[in-house]
């Protein structure tokens, strides 16, 4: 089975999309004896005119054109690789040409999709009906793809199930038995954040996008800081400060009177690729007291990464973050303050700021070491790429192969048993 995979970001980038492309396809599927040599990628961010290769896996260029969807060169790449199937990890509502090609039977499309809105607008269901199989990143996503609770209607019948995204348990793990030990071990990291051993470090790991509720998060931290004047609060935002058309985060930090305690990943490249590797990120998680990311996310890798590193995440009591945290630390889920509807009917949840302050207070006053092992062993047991995620992913690949066979993607073997006769 020849596979072309497409993740929104290149596997060289440490965004969730890029990271998954690297961990799933480059590091694992392409090295699996059954699939070796049959995997190729298609990168969109960064846009490039040139073909690339990563650990022997070909990465097709997107021609430097449509960087958001990567659809301009989909068909030539799909055909060049003689692909049987096209896997994507990307928001489904963005796709346009992909849907057309899938409907025409030119590609066999398997979208692995993060759903970061609620409810799902009708046009997204319509687009996804063109896929051969739909795979959600969460059980929550799977459920609303199959059944729309708003219209109370059955929806897609091509949903395979869900596959979570994962972590490498050898990388994201606590380096000591207590927070104090970890901070001692990662003293350099602590200093780089201008924090002391007794500082209360809040970390936000989220790309700077307008859809993420940065103002609500920062406002909550301001309130928490003001209500705890004796606590040395430090904030690290693992994101770029200012991106065109996104939040002017440094101005926001200043507006919420947090600029004196805030550090950023200096540029997008630093935040996601060149400098801050997962190794560095795991240290930052390790020394943090709280990882603050309550939002309606498509999956929310920082939640499982912080848990694996032994740090308490603060998530949203709706959608994927609830699914990930509910079984182990529901006490740190934040309620929804309000719902905002995008013009294209994709609803976004805004977290309740006061609830965030409550959770921060709770963490400041709890025995964090109690959570350290509990959270990391839970995350390792449920989200490790090798132990938990990939077995399910290989099962998906097997099912895709059966479906391709059912659809006769390859010419069935010719029956040559018929008797030869000579007729006069």
């Amino acid at each position, binding site marked *: 089975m020849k596979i072309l995979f497409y993740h929104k970001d290149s596997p060289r980038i440490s965004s969730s999309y890029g990271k998954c492309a690297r961990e799933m396809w480059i590091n694992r599927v392409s090295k699996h004896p059954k699939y070796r040599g049959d995997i190729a990628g298609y990168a969109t961010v960064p846009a490039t005119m040139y073909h690339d290769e990563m650990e022997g896996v070909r990465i097709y260029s997107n021609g430097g054109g449509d960087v958001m969807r990567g659809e301009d060169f989909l068909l030539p790449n799909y055909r060049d690789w003689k692909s049987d199937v096209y896997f994507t990890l990307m928001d489904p509502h963005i796709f346009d040409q992909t849907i057309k090609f899938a409907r025409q039977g030119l590609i066999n499309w398997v979208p692995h999709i993060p759903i970061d809105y609620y409810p799902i607008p009708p046009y997204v269901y319509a687009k996804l009906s063109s896929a051969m199989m739909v795979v959600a990143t969460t059980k929550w996503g799977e459920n609303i793809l199959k059944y729309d609770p708003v219209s109370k209607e059955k929806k897609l019948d091509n949903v395979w199930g869900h596959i979570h995204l994962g972590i490498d348990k050898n990388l994201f793990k606590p380096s000591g038995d207590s927070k104090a030990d970890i901070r001692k071990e990662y003293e350099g990291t602590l200093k780089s954040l201008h924090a002391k051993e007794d500082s209360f470090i809040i970390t936000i790991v989220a790309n700077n996008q307008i859809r993420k509720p940065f103002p609500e998060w920062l406002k909550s931290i301001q309130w928490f800081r003001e209500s705890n004047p004796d606590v040395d609060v430090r904030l690290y935002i693992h994101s770029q400060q200012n991106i065109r058309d996104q939040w002017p985060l440094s101005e926001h930090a200043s507006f919420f009177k947090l600029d004196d305690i805030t550090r950023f990943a200096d540029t997008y490249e630093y935040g996601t690729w060149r400098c801050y590797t997962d190794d560095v990120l795991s240290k930052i998680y390790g020394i943090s007291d709280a990882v603050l990311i309550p939002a309606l996310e498509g999956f929310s890798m920082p939640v499982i990464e912080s848990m694996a590193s032994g740090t308490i995440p603060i998530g949203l009591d709706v959608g994927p973050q609830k699914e990930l945290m509910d079984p182990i630390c529901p006490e740190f889920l934040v309620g929804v303050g309000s719902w905002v509807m995008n013009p294209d009917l994709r609803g976004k949840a805004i977290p309740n700021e006061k609830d965030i302050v409550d959770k921060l207070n709770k963490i400041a006053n709890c025995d964090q070491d109690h959570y350290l092992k509990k959270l990391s062993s839970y995350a390792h047991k449920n989200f490790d790429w090798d132990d938990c995620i990939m077995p399910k992913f290989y099962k998906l690949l097997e099912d895709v192969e059966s479906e391709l*066979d*059912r*659809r*006769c993607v390859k*010419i*069935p073997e*010719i*029956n*040559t048993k*018929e*008797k*030869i*006769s*000579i*007729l*006069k």
Partner: protein
Amino acid sequence: MKIAWLQDLPLNAGIGSGAEANDERMIQYGRCKLNHVIDVIIPTNPMVKRLDKYDLRIVSNCVRFNPLILQGIPKPYVVFHHDFWHCKYRAYYPKTDKCKGCVYAPRWKELYLGSVLNIFLSPLHLKVNAFVIPELNNHPHAFVPSPIDANKFKPNKNVKIKKDTVMGLNCLYEFKGSKKVIGYIKKHKKLKFDLYGADPDIEIDLPKNAEFKGFVDNAILPDIMQQYEYFIHFPQNEAFCRAVVEFLLANHKGKLICTKENIGALSYDIYTKGKIDRNKLHDLVSNAPKQFWSEIDKKLR
């Protein structure tokens, strides 16, 4: 009667194959002998959206049409089967176990069973379709062979048959049984095989007793066919198979080396005392256009 004839390819474009040749003969007969007004409608014709303006619709090869057009086709309509549309690989690969749960069949099943009549090219043609869609056995159907100009394909007593020679036509295509043909050639070294037809575009290592002769014009085909003692043909499944019938008509002494149960034409009752009766075969294909329209007429009456 005003008739819409739905067809993937324009009939006079010279890009079609047997199916278009069949259609052309049927349409010619309908127009000239029966005075029907027949519009050939290809997928890009704007009249695809005005099919209700016709008294009857004949759905011929239609895989390139928008499925919605076929779903909403006004009644009455007749389905004129050529290959096996529901099969992704058309005529060549049905009859595997998974065909019974074919993912492509439901869309076509609806079309077939909504028609007033399904016209198949042979009893085998129905049998293979019904393997996937068993309901077809009980739905109104008729068998109409491919029309062949029997006056063109007739024996010539002056031509001497070359002994131990075998002719093949397009048999190097995989779906026409190329592997089996090559195996047969290797086993029968005393026979000399001349293989005609279009280039199959793949590397085939022909045994020494075989020669690839390439494409020949249809006009000289009867003269070539008359020279051979045998004609070899091992298709996977062929709804009718004009080439076999043309050989039998052009060469009364010629013999067929074939997989009989895969050739639609040989599934008709054309045998007398175990031998193929050329007269029966002649009548069968000569009357095809007339029979085609009379079957439709019977159903609509």
